[in-house]
């Protein structure tokens, strides 16, 4: 086998005359994991969509094993051996695992009858190979995020793929699940498959990839074997400038306790959660996916029924709905930006005032659009939101800018206690740094912050005090120098630190 498996020559893609991918030359080799990194909007998704047959390039060619090739559709690409595991799951919730794996490419008997036995056997084989604790008959909507991820991988591997593209595959996974995915990737690589790994998590890129390419503004700005490039330099290439310390310095909060939660329980989600937060503190909530952190936050906001006591500034703040919670001084930035954070069809200003609209009324019911626009303008400047027009619908903004709008919306009512749930999910390095700095400033001015995150690095970088949840309960509290990755993982998994290391 000589030459690369896949070769991309002078690949260019323009949308309405605007080039998002500028004449990129890339080789993808057999038995290699190629890391593809870049900021949001750098052209990564466009590149992947061309490889997987979703977009047609404006110019440039694709070669598979030295032969020019053009894909008309994703199924065309899949037949040629190019499969993609998308960032957003693309599974039919009411169908079984096996039905999803073969969806649109069912195996048939006599040319028209479903060959269920063969599909089931093949699915079971793939699941076993991945060490997935899932049965082919399970329905998708009963699975965890990590299990769904594995089903997506199965789907991609069901037909002999020679090139597998993984788009941000670890955002929903816990540390152990990530390790298992990496082991799987190594075994696929050993079989001679080519893998493309797209991620914002540079430490993971360093750990799993053999070679890295960096896209910036649609151009390929760097290509290097992973041994020759450190995460810090990857970040520098992506943003084109030096990123100094990404986390602002931590501070120990000494202000008075502002939020006090006692014995908060919600059956089936979490039980007996008690904690306090001080003015100006950034309290971390760590734990595995499904440990009950988001559910706890939703209960505090009155979005989920619960029992127990909540006091804010000494007054009862147990909320029955989000409106009560907001009036009592709580704010919540949801982890699911598209699903429960922002309205993609609404303009920037309209989104920012969605919670606090009652503060923009004249005569009690008419929206004062001048006041609204002025406030939106201050938020835009404060966050450096890149958008020409405050009425532009949010769907036209990048992920990072959408997140800033979502944050502005949460902050507009002026909460005393702000809960941020995965505040930097799907956001590029530069926007991440801005968000961290902003949260830190907010705490410095006296807001009490609760940071929920699956990214340990983020929790460790931002919080002086961390609560760890496991299976719906707070299992430990770490403070100061004790806030260490090992300690958190020990508490989060309930395993001995040595066994986990």
């Amino acid at each position, binding site marked *: 086998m000589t030459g690369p498996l896949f070769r991309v020559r002078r690949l260019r893609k323009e949308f309405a005359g605007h080039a998002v991918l500028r004449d990129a030359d890339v080789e993808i080799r057999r038995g290699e994991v190629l890391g593809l990194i870049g900021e949001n909007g750098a052209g990564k998704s466009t590149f992947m969509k061309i490889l997987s047959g979703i977009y047609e390039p404006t110019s440039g060619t694709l070669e598979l094993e030295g032969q020019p090739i053009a894909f008309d559709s994703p199924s065309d690409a899949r037949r040629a051996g190019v499969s993609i595991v998308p960032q957003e799951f693309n599974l039919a919730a009411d169908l079984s695992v096996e039905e999803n794996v073969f969806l649109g490419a069912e195996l048939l008997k006599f040319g028209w009858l479903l060959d269920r036995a063969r599909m089931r056997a093949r699915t079971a084989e793939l699941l076993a190979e991945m060490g997935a604790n899932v049965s082919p008959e399970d329905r998708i909507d009963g699975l965890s995020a990590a299990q769904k991820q594995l089903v997506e991988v199965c789907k991609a591997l069901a037909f002999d793929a020679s090139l597998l593209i993984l788009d941000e595959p670890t955002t929903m996974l816990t540390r152990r699940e990530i390790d298992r995915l990496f082991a799987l990737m190594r075994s696929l690589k050993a079989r001679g498959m080519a893998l493309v790994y797209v991620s914002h998590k540079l430490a993971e890129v360093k750990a799993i990839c053999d070679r890295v390419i960096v896209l910036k503004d649609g151009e390929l700005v760097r290509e290097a074997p992973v041994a020759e490039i450190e995460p810090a330099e990857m970040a520098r290439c992506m943003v084109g400038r030096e990123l100094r310390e990404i986390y602002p310095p931590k501070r120990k909060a000494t202000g008075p306790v502002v939020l006090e939660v006692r014995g908060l329980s919600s059956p089936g989600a979490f039980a007996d959660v008690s904690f306090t937060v001080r003015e100006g503190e950034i309290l971390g909530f760590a734990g595995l996916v499904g440990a009950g952190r988001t559910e706890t936050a939703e209960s505090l*906001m009155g*979005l989920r029924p619960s029992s127990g006591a909540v006091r804010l500034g000494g007054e009862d703040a147990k909320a029955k*709905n*989000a409106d009560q919670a907001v009036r009592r001084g709580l704010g919540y930035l949801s982890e699911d930006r598209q699903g429960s954070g*922002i309205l*993609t*069809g609404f303009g920037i200003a309209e989104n920012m005032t969605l*919670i606090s609209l009652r503060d923009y009324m004249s005569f009690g019911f*008419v929206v004062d659009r001048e006041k609204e626009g002025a406030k939106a303008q201050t938020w835009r400047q404060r966050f450096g939101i890149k958008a020409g027009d405050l009425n532009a619908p949010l769907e036209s903004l990048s992920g990072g800018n959408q997140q800033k709008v979502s944050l502005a919306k949460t902050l507009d009512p002026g909460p005393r206690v702000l809960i941020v749930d995965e505040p930097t999910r799907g956001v590029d390095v530069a926007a991440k740094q801005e968000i961290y700095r902003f949260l830190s400033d907010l705490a410095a001015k006296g807001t009490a912050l609760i940071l929920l995150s699956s990214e340990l690095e983020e929790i460790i970088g931002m919080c002086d005090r961390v609560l760890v949840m496991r299976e719906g309960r707070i299992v430990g509290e770490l403070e100061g120098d004790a806030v260490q990755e090992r300690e958190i993982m020990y508490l989060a998994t309930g395993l001995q630190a040595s066994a986990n290391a």
Partner: protein
Amino acid sequence: MSATLAFLQRVEKERYAAFAALAILSIVSALLSPFFLQWQNLLNILRQVSYTGIISLGMTFVIVSGGIDLSVGSMAAFVGSLAVLALNAVSDAGLAQETAVAAAIACAVLAGLACGLANGLLVTKGRIAPFIVTLGTMALFRSLSLYMANAGEFRSVSSLFGELGSAAPLGIPVPALILLGLAAALAFVFARTKYGRYTRAVGSNARVARYSAINVDTTRLAAYTVTGLMVGISAVLIAMRFNSVGSSTLGINYELDAIAAVIIGGTSMAGGRGTIWGTVVGAITLGVINNMLNMVGISPYLQGTVKGLVIIGAVFIQRQRQ
């Protein structure tokens, strides 16, 4: 500057597509028949579309909030029947005609509000899909009217009631004035008030609205109640027009016309987007189509075919634009 221009182009295209279609249709009609542009004919079209037009204003709120109301036609028959019964009861009691007419109007408005509220409560508190709720109440309201009138009609005993139905101050028919007045008021509510903003937010993504401290149930409930109110106003106007209510004929296919007007007016069936003036234009467009078909002598039985094609075409064009 160029950003403003791009923005204007985007908005204007959305907002004025329905106006443009109506303008083209009017020009074609004027070319096909010299009678089309006569003042009397235009007023006649406006009167004809007023009854379902008023209902479609409420329907805009329901559809933008992410729902649908199929019961409006049956509800109009039911509410209209009650209004005529109230009118006759007050007249028979020997009170003044004016009092009787006021009683009929009050009865229609209150009964409409109550019916709309019932639909809204079933959708929000009962957590039943709007399509199912209003399919059920559609059958229920019609059946109640048929039962009350024994499938016949309620005749008004008041001559004043009927005279009001054909009144036309300044030459403009009363229903048309009411349609335009209500449209102006509701367009303001829709575009400029907190409630209008919430209606769009709920229809755009109910989960985001709930997480944004918006009371989703109250917002939806209000949309069905407003529709009930519009049906009440419309029903009493139709009852005046005929000075009677036919329990088996009044309101037939009104849900179709009301929904069609909303869609032709550019409101998204998926919710979250729409305009009140677009709906008014949509209602008038339907009237112009009927008028044109009459004038060129096409069988009235084929009017439904044309209406159906226009509805499908309008949605098809919306899809293309996205």
